[in-house]
Structure formats: C-alpha cells, structure tokens
C-alpha cells in the first residue's frame, strides 16, 4: 500500500517538475513554475519518507534543519553573487550524489548485493558527482576571485589529465568486472576529486559561467546515474531535465561568444590579458564629467543604454532606473540593449534591471536593437566592455573575433562609464573607448549614474538652461 503511494507521489513529482520548467517560458507564468517545483519536491520527499527501510529520523531531521539554516542565507546573496551561489550549490549537488553513491557501494558490498550493473552505475555517479563537487568549488573560487582567474597552464598538462583519466577509467572497468575489488573504489573517488580541480585550472575566469552551466548538466547526469543505482525513475527524469538545461545554456553562451566547447574547456582563454592591455596606453581617450554626459542625454531624442558586468558590480541598476525615468519624463525614448552574455550569467542584466523595476518591454535583445543603432543619438555604455568591443567584428587576431556584439560604436555619441582603462573580462583592449564619437566618464558606475540622474532631474542641463 505505502509502496503504491510512494510510486504515485514520484509520478506526480516528475510531472510537476516538467510543468515547473514549462511554466518558466514566460514571466507571466514563471512563479507558478516555482510553485510547481516546490510541490514536486515536497511530494518526492513525502513519498521517500514512507519507505519502510527508514528506521528513524534522528539523522535526517537535524541534517535537514541544518540545510535550511544554511540554505536560507544562501538565497539572500546580492544578485551580483548569483553565479558564485550557483556554482556552490552545484558543488553541494555533486557532493550529495558522490556520497550517496559511495554509501550504496559500501552497503551493497557488505550485503554482497553488488552486480556489475550496479557497480557501473555507481562508478559513473561517483565520478560525475565528485568531479562536479571540486570543479564547482574551483569555479566559485575563480568567480569570487579567491583563486587567480587567469588560466593556469603548464607543459604536458593534457598528457597528465589524459593519464589520470585513463587510470580512472581503468579502475572503473576493474570495478565493473569484479565489483568486490573494494580497493579500487577509493582510487575512483580520489581521481574524480583531482579531476574536477585539474579540469578547471586551465580555464580563464571569463569562461566560468559557461563552465558552471556545463557543471550544471554534469550534476544532472550524476542524478541520472543515481536513478539507475536506486532504480528510481524520478531521479532519472529530474536529472535529465537538469542535464538538458545546463547543456542548452552552455551551448547558447558558446554561440554568443562564437566559441566551441573544446575552445572553452582547453583554450586557456584570457591568457593574453597582460599583452593586450599593454597596447592600450598609447592612444588617447576623451574623458568627460557626469555633467557633460547629462547634457548629451538631455539633448538626445533616442537613447540606448548598454549595461554590462560593471553595472552589476556597482549595483547601479537603481540609479540607472532614475536616469531612465528622468529621460522618459522628458519624452526621450530610452531602450536597453541586452547582450546574451552581458554580465556573468545568461540573463544576468535582465534580472538586475527587473530588480530596478524597469519594464522588460523596453529591454531589447542584441539582434533586435542592432539595426536601429545608427538612428541612436546617445549610447550609454554602463560597465560593459567586451560585449561592445568592435574588435570582435574586425580583428581576426582578437580572441573574441566573431563574437556577435552590440553595435554601440554606430551611435552618434557614445558615453562609456567605467572606473579605469582596465580591460574587460576577456582581458583585451577595446577600440570603442578611443573612438572619435566616444567620451569616457571614469568612476564607479553607481556614483556617475547618480550624478547624471540628479543633473537631469534638477534640469540644470544645457537643454534646460
């Protein structure tokens, strides 16, 4: 009887998870999607707690409470830290998978219930799980810049990795052939943990978001493997959904950067940093004050704002909103140009601007806005860099060559707001900032934008004077 209830709740949970993602297709139904997800998860847990094998909750309850205690604060991090949070929770996911796999192995080993199939499934689960664990921690570290974001490479790196991989596979096969070869199991664990580290080390910080999505799908696959271990379809389905999502997102990002997976994973992207920035100093930038910027804006009729990672760092979205309001109040048409990889996550800018209550009807995707850029009077680049770097169009040599960009340079006047002459995430110089029609306003985005906003509101601008 209980068993049937469990089965039914798993069935319902799987369906709810699918609806959950389905409803995420547009903002109107998105929150219902979350509700469905929560319902599904609750059903899954409920169904699990009915399992007769569970002798008591003495360990489960405290662990769960601790999880809630840690989970809640993790959900309140500033939006700029979302990528790191995501990475960390992938780490947790991977850890859980790895541990469950290990436990199952130990239990079945003692009970002599190990089949080759089970051993195989466990090996895959443990490999993916622990690899995701350390890999995600590394990624989080690089995003938080605790670990040097530069790709770290050394001679024979690939050789070493391949060797380790070979050993890991060997050990795995060994376990499948004779599941009781317990001594091989720690080897698999150790190797997958090391592997996670070694795979991330040579990848530059600029590619971490892509890596995170990839780890996302690994975590999903680990869940799938767990499903095969526990003979549980719900795990397989939820895992597959997760895997698909992570995969699709990373593909989208690679496309938006015009890079291949292999290039992202082994390209050691972002090394050129030093070299590139060296060249920067020679040419001159025209710098201006926030007040000048306000004047330009006041006299424009069509304004396009290009937000980038800098806006996120500075938490400037609310100030940007003030400028948006001030301008629209003056009857000036203001649009936001959202590059698919602006910021550090897909959709990063959308979330920030939504937080600042900017109607998403005025957020345009790159492809929609580019044709209109030549008609744009003033283009304000708020802490964006790579996504408006014309080198992507022109310089074959550039590491971002071929990456579709927002044609900020086509605007009549470009106002670029950033703190310094430093390059962006890709670590390369940006010709836009030296262009004829560009003026730089140096300073923290939040401060600068705030000044502009006040200038516009007090109407103490050339136009109003």
């Amino acid at each position, binding site marked *: 009887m209980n068993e049937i209830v469990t089965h039914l709740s798993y069935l319902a949970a799987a369906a709810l998870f699918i609806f959950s*993602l*389905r409803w*995420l*297709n547009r*903002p109107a139904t*998105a929150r219902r999607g*979350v509700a469905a997800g929560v319902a*599904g*998860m609750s059903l*899954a847990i409920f169904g*699990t707690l009915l*399992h007769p094998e*569970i*002798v008591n*909750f003495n*360990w489960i309850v405290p*662990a*769960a409470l601790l*999880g*809630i205690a*840690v*989970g809640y604060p*993790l*959900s*309140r991090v500033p939006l700029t830290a979302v990528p790191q949070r*995501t990475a960390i*929770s992938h780490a947790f*996911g991977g850890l*859980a*998978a790895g*541990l*469950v796999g290990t*436990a*199952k192995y130990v*239990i079945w080993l003692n009970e002599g219930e190990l*089949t080759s199939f089970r051993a195989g499934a466990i090996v895959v689960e443990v490999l993916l799980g622990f690899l995701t664990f350390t890999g995600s921690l590394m990624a989080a570290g690089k995003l938080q810049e605790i670990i040097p974001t530069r790709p770290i490479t050394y001679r024979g790196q690939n050789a070493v990795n391949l060797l380790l991989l070979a050993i890991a596979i060997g050990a795995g096969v060994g376990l499948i052939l004779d599941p009781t070869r317990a001594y091989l199991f720690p080897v698999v664990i150790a190797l997958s943990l090391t592997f996670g580290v070694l795979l991330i080390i040579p990848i530059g910080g600029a590619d971490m978001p892509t890596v995170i999505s990839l780890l*996302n799908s690994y975590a999903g696959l*680990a869940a799938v493997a*767990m499903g095969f271990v526990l003979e*549980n379809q719900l*795990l397989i389905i939820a895992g597959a*959904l*997760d*895997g*698909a*999502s992570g995969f*699709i*997102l990373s593909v989208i990002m690679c496309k938006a950067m015009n890079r291949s997976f292999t290039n992202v994973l082994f390209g050691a992207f972002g090394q050129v940093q030093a070299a590139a920035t060296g060249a920067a100093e020679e040419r001159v930038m025209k710098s201006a004050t926030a007040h000048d910027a306000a004047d330009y804006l006041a006299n424009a009729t069509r304004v396009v704002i290009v937000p980038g990672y800098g806006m996120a760092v500075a938490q400037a979205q609310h100030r940007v909103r003030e400028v*948006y309001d001030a301008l629209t109040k003056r009857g000036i048409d203001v649009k936001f140009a959202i590059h698919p990889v602006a910021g550090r996550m*897909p*959709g*990063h800018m*959308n979330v920030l601007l*939504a*937080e600042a*209550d900017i*109607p*998403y*009807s005025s*957020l345009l995707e790159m492809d929609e806005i580019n044709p209109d850029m030549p008609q744009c009077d003033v283009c304000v680049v708020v802490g964006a860099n790579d996504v408006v770097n014309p080198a992507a169009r022109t310089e074959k040599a550039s590491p971002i060559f071929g990456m579709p960009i927002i044609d900020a340079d086509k605007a009549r006047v470009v106002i670029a707001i950033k703190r310094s002459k430093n390059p962006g995430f890709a670590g390369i110089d940006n010709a836009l900032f030296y262009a004829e029609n560009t003026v730089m306003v140096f300073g923290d985005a939040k401060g600068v934008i705030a000044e502009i906003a006040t200038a516009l509101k007090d109407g103490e601008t050339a136009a109003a004077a």
Partner: protein
Amino acid sequence: MDQDLIFSMLFALMLATFVGFAVIQNVSRLLHTPLMSLTNAISAIAVVGSILIAGEQKDTFTTIIGAIAVFASVTNIVSGFLITDRMLKMFREKGPKS
C-alpha cells in the same frame, strides 16, 4: 536486477531528455538566470537517495555521509527555490512610466 527494469529506466531517460530539450528551448531568454537556479533546485532531487541512506542506518559510516548528503541537498532545495522566486518576483509586466 532484471533487464525489463533496466530498459524501462533507459526509456525514461530517453523520453525525459526529449522533454527536457523541448521545454528548456521554450524558456524565455529573459529568465535564463532564474532557469539556472530552478534546475539547480530540481537537481537536488538527490535528496531522495540521501534520505534513504541516512534513514536506513546500515552502519555509522554510511549513516553519517547520508546525513551530510541530506544536508547538502536540502540546502540546494531551500536556496534554489527561494532565490528563483526572489528573482521572478522582480519581473513584472508594465508599460514604461512617464
């Protein structure tokens, strides 16, 4: 463990992959960040396995790592769903104000 069951799981995997691709491709670009955190929470379904291990209590070792797994999964569930909802709350349809 018998073949039929293995294959029925393979069927589930195959179908779920199709569903996954079909559904995710329809997610609006606007919501890709929430999508990441939502799938994140969903993949914490590993909680099912964790609970079983921590509940069976076959031996201390497995019980402890089971409990750790429960902790890790629950953390993801809580933070994942909460942050997703927090982000989605911000998306409100409205015409530009003037």
